[in-house]
């Protein structure tokens, strides 16, 4: 077992038994589901909206070269500078070089999962640059030195008491549990960073090929401040974020808002295409877009799972996942949590360390049923299991066990003998060491007196001649599956 899998198992064991943690997550999820149900009523047909959204993103991830080139050339026309980074190290080097050339000392950041993916804050800190997370949820995560707990709601796991304690201890703020006062503490604290920062760093929710702009979605206004006040604006953008035309956002903005938080539109939906233009009175002198691959082209090459790149990071699959609700966001130990994270992480960071996430699923398909861009999430989890086996990453005992199993079930006689032995062993209780992983937290039903095959044979011989009705018979071992 890999160390990543070991830590997943131990964290999951702890978290799924942590009743207060589960209560917090359940309360958050309940609020989410109520808002989303209300938000969907604004659509004539939410399912049709999903089909539109899936169609737009399918077009992009199947003609990505065309849209990337169009995006780049339109941005350059607007005076933006476009960089390409194959991996995290290259992206960090590009951003650090921009910061160095402008003598940047302070950076204000918007919430951005792709900057988490490349661990940008650590790189900035190592270069002596102060980087401040300005989204309220990310701000407290940064104070606690924690990664975001959830794609959309980074501080979902924290209560107002946690906010109060953190602001009191780290910022010297007065103790208060009023969410409004707590928000104002953060607003006042971060205001001076906004006014003095040299550089703003954002991600992008969408990258619009025509007319060559990035789209940013938020509620707080911190992103607008990040791209309005500092001298330099850098946007780090995964290459899959493209959409063909700005007109597509008339659908994708409401779809993202609805699936993300149940909002028809978030408070601010912005487009940024360049630095301050001629005739404009404010805005940065330079606007840089860093296009990041970091494993995405590997996923793109997998035709079977390419649709995973259609993801708009709304978090709907996390919010509907019974596993996420039980084990929480940190157990995954990945940048992207929940079903989408379990699907893409093995592609981005290797099957060897991350294919265990394919089993963090009951395959119930709730994720697939809510995904606004029709990603076949639970099927991809199955495919990742298969891929891991094909790469011989499954443990030896499992490989042997399946081989033995195949040998047994390919002969009726062998199957009958093993069944008989198994029932006997179950009754004698000598299977305990083998069933322990299951029975540690669950009961095993009592073994039936006879096998299905024995019961079937008996039923067939007792069958009355044709024309008469057979008496209803119950097979052994509980209810029938009709």
């Amino acid at each position, binding site marked *: 077992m890999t160390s990543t899998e070991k830590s997943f198992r131990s964290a999951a064991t702890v978290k799924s038994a942590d009743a207060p943690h589960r209560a917090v997550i359940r*309360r*958050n999820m309940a609020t*989410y589901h109520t808002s989303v149900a209300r938000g969907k009523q*604004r*659509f004539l*047909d939410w399912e*049709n909206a999903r*089909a539109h959204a*899936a*169609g737009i993103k*399918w077009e992009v991830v*199947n003609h*990505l*070269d065309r849209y*990337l080139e169009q995006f780049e050339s339109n941005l350059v026309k607007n*005076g933006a500078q476009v960089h*390409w980074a*194959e991996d995290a190290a*290259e992206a960090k080097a590009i951003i650090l070089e921009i910061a160095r050339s402008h003598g940047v000392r302070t950076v204000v950041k918007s919430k951005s999962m792709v900057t988490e993916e490349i661990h940008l804050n650590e790189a900035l800190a190592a270069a002596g640059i102060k980087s401040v997370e*300005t*989204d*309220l*949820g990310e701000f*407290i995560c940064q104070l606690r030195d924690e990664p975001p707990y959830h794609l959309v709601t980074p*501080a979902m796991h*924290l209560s*107002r008491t946690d*906010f109060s304690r953190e602001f009191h201890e780290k910022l010297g703020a007065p103790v208060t549990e009023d*969410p409004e006062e707590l*928000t104002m503490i953060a607003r006042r604290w971060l205001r001076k960073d906004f006014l003095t920062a040299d550089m703003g760093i954002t991600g992008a929710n969408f990258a619009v090929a025509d*007319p060559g*702009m990035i789209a940013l979605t938020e*509620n*707080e*206004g*911190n992103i*607008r401040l990040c*791209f309005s006040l500092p001298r330099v604006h850098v946007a780090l953008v995964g*290459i899959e974020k493209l959409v063909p035309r700005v*007109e597509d*956002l*008339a*659908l994708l*903005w409401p779809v993202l808002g609805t699936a993300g938080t149940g909002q*028809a539109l978030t*408070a*601010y939906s*912005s*487009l*940024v*295409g360049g630095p301050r233009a001629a005739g*404009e*009175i*404010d805005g940065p002198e330079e606007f840089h877009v860093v*296009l990041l*691959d970091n494993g995405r*082209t590997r996923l793109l*090459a997998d*035709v079977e799972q*390419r649709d995973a790149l259609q993801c708009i990071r709304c978090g709907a699959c996390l919010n509907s996942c019974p596993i996420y609700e039980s084990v929480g966001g940190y157990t995954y130990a990945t940048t992207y949590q929940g079903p989408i994270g379990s699907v893409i992480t093995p592609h981005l960071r290797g099957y060897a360390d991350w294919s265990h996430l394919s089993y963090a699923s009951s395959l119930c398909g709730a994720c697939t049923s809510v995904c606004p861009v029709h990603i076949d999430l639970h099927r991809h989890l199955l495919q990742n299991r298969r891929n891991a086996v094909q790469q011989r990453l499954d443990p030896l005992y499992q490989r042997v066990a399946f081989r033995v199993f195949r040998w047994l079930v390919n002969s009726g006689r062998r199957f009958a003998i093993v069944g008989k032995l198994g029932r006997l062993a179950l009754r004698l209780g000598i299977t305990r060491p083998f069933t322990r992983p299951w029975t540690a937290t669950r009961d095993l039903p009592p073994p039936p007196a006879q096998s299905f095959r024995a019961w079937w044979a008996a039923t067939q011989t007792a069958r009355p001649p044709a024309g008469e009705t057979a008496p209803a018979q119950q097979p052994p071992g509980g209810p029938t599956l009709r």
Partner: protein
Amino acid sequence: MTSRDKILGSVRDAMRTLAIRPVPPTSAPVFPPVTDPAQRFREEFLALKGEIIESPEALRQFLAGFPKITTDDSDLVRQTAGPGNATVREADLGITGCDCLIAQMGAIVVSPPSAGGRAPSVLPPAHLVIARRDQLIPDLAGAVDFVRRRYDGHWPSTLSIIAGPSRTGDIEKIMVLGAHGPRRLAVYWAG
């Protein structure tokens, strides 16, 4: 070979095979039609906690609450609310025009040319939009079309759709107004 060439090369290689096409959407409209834009804007904007200033007298009272005001210096704003008296960094209130308003979402579209730059509509703790009723567009798709027609070929460097005052739900999903942008957002119809 540059990173650009390598990434685009890998993308092109991948694009040789198309993924299975999803079930196409129907041609039915996605949203219900907006029948009375003025009424719809009012309902949506108020539901988002926006304020509508109903009369010149109410506007005078509203403005009296803000000692330091910055404006976008447009004719419409100057004629309606007078000149500003503060820089954008010190102002309590930013007064701007807009490109258009969206009835369907109770939203306002601003850009540097329509709202005096990037900061006046987001940095001060309150934002007042002076608009004309003929700037109201029924739905979001119409607003995007409008912006495209207005700017195609020479887009402003940025553009924002504002749907209500700044807000956050990051503490226990309880909605709080005024996270980083304006805590108060008001509209005054100047014609």
